[in-house]
């Protein structure tokens, strides 16, 4: 993952919209002092600090544990990144994570076979993405409301009796594919590898394919994108399908990893963590910039902070407070570095 080309791209796009902070920090280097650099620096500082003061933090075992705890979050961040780059947001990701994978577990437990169950789960994820995409691209409902509503609806599917309980346990039938979330190869947990694979796939899509470029274009300037003859609406639909499928993949990894799928997680604060990872890494909510490396850095920073706090036995409330503060700082930095201008304001961004 080469961050330089990615950043010079994002940097070039950002230069035209430099905010006061960016202008101030313009002396920092050719690409400007973008958020990715701030966060990378912050990550390194915290990492070194922890490594010095926390016994047992800087050990291979703990670093792998750290990666393992945030792998699913990172995968979700990758899906979210695709949508955010297209100047949208997908609040239904946690529902797309929980419900299709719970459906797979339920169907497999009822004896429908591994492949058909997975097929149905995937089809459901695609359907969720399609629904989101069509409502956003064709009905032109803001993505915030669309995905919020779709998410609540999808999360309710379990409650109308599709699953026996809201917490669906991993059936032994699926043990053949349980490795995606459990165990390790050469000491590296499979869930971390799943994150790496997903990162490579999304990175290739965003930077090496024409459709990926269209995603950047659609987020950067939808009007110009359409004028240039790029099929804007189908590209938007594709973004939501990708994020739903990535969420489904994350769901299968999570289910395999914790041996059950707790569909209640839609009601928890996970979606904020995903947004946190994406925004923190420097993918602006006004769309059109950023890439996989931003998600990776954002994930590493959050993982490091949380890992250290858990080692220090800091209470749950305090951990939430820290997370909230970090999110707030990230959004603040985002609005200073990528300020809203007349153009973004008129485009009705989220």
């Amino acid at each position, binding site marked *: 993952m080469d961050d330089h080309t990615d950043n010079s791209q994002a940097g070039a796009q950002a230069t035209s919209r430099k905010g006061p902070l960016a202008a101030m920090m313009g002396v920092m280097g050719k690409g400007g002092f973008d958020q990715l650099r701030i966060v990378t620096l912050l990550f390194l500082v915290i990492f070194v600090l922890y490594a010095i003061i926390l016994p*047992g933090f800087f050990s291979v075992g703990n670093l792998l*544990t750290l990666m393992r705890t945030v792998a699913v979050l990172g995968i979700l961040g990758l899906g979210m990144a695709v949508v955010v780059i297209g100047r949208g947001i997908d609040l239904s990701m946690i529902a797309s994570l929980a419900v299709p994978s719970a459906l797979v577990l339920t169907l497999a437990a009822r004896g429908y076979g591994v492949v058909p169950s997975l097929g149905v789960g995937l089809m459901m994820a695609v359907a969720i993405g399609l629904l989101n995409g069509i409502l956003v691209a064709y009905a032109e409902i803001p993505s915030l409301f669309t995905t919020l509503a779709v998410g609540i609806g999808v999360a309710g599917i379990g*409650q109308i009796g599709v699953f026996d309980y809201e*917490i669906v*346990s991993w059936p032994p039938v699926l043990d053949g594919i349980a490795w995606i979330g459990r165990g390790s190869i050469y000491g590296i947990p499979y869930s971390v590898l799943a994150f790496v694979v997903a990162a490579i796939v999304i990175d290739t899509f965003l930077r090496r394919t024409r459709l990926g470029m269209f995603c950047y274009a659609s987020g950067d300037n939808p009007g110009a994108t359409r004028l240039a003859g790029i099929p804007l609406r189908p590209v938007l639909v594709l973004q939501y399908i990708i994020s739903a499928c990535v969420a489904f993949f994350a769901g299968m990894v999570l289910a395999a990893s914790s041996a059950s799928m707790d569909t209640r997680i839609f009601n928890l604060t996970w979606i904020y963590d995903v947004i946190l990872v994406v925004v923190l890494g420097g993918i602006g909510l006004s769309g059109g910039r950023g890439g996989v490396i931003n998600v990776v850095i954002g994930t590493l920073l959050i993982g490091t902070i949380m890992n250290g706090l*858990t080692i220090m036995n800091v209470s*749950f409330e305090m951990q939430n407070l820290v997370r909230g503060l970090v999110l707030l700082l990230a959004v603040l930095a985002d609005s200073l570095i990528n300020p809203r201008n007349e153009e973004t304001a008129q485009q009705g961004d989220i």
Partner: protein
Amino acid sequence: MKKLLKLGTAAALATLCGTAHLQAQASMDDPLRDAYYENLKGRKVVFVPVFMGLDLTEGWSKIMARQAKELGYDYEVRNSNFNTAAGAQTLTSLISEKPDVIVVQNPDVQSYAKLLQRAEKAGIHVIQLNMKTNYQTTGFVGADVELIGEKQAEAAVEKCGHSETPGKVLVLAGPPTSPFSAYMLKGYENILNDNPKVNIVSVQSTGDYESSKAKSITQVVLQQHPDLCAILGVWDNTDVGTAAALKEAGKTDQVLVTTSGGGGELACKGLRENMWQYYVSYDVPGQGRDLNALIMAAMQDKNPVGSTKTVLYTPLVTYTPETLGDERCWTLDTLR
């Protein structure tokens, strides 16, 4: 011919009446029966759970619904969907709707307290289920959480209190403000504070009983303390994640996991698959029966609401691999 038929019918009817009369003389009316059933006509019970779709809430609800159907009163569920604000809203609207009884499961010790007080002032009997606020209403049915904590801690002492160095224990609690966290910690302290041979190395919350959170905390703590001896878990559904972490680390046989729950099929499955080795059940079928009894008592109570207060702590049942053969775990289908 018609005349003959009429005559025959009349004769048959007369014979029937005669027999009935003869039988009535041999039996008696139950003086309580009519009033009992009449009293229940048109009455209404509403259940406000924290979240439906869990073995606990589905189990309780099934038992309550069955009694309502048999005795002919209304029963309704208003799911607050893990949203305390939505639950408070539901209670507020119920106060003006005035059902006869509200059965409520509290998300924490504080949020609903004032509302429950207002509901009782409005003449609605309130029965708190398993998770209580710090305000006592007409009834409480549920586990003595402190006792669960004590039992779990005793199991940990038995396993970890023998070696020279203090045995390391991890506590995985629920949401910080939940009665299950606060009272269970008290129970742990009651036992562990007098026991220098056991050392709590970490107390962490699993958020809203998230199994993935339990898993990641266990992983981090295991990394710090590879010689961990026991984990005191809060709820079976959460501790599926705890067990998954131990299994991945290959430490299932080294670390004792104790947990609690309603004693549903997951309890036995966990014991069979060595996910936990000590399980304290608050016995949902038993709780359901206690609950139904309190509902009936409330509906027959003619005194001002809140003048009698009954607390029914559920008798706890302990499951271990040794007692597993009994297979006492319930499923929704076996609930009667």
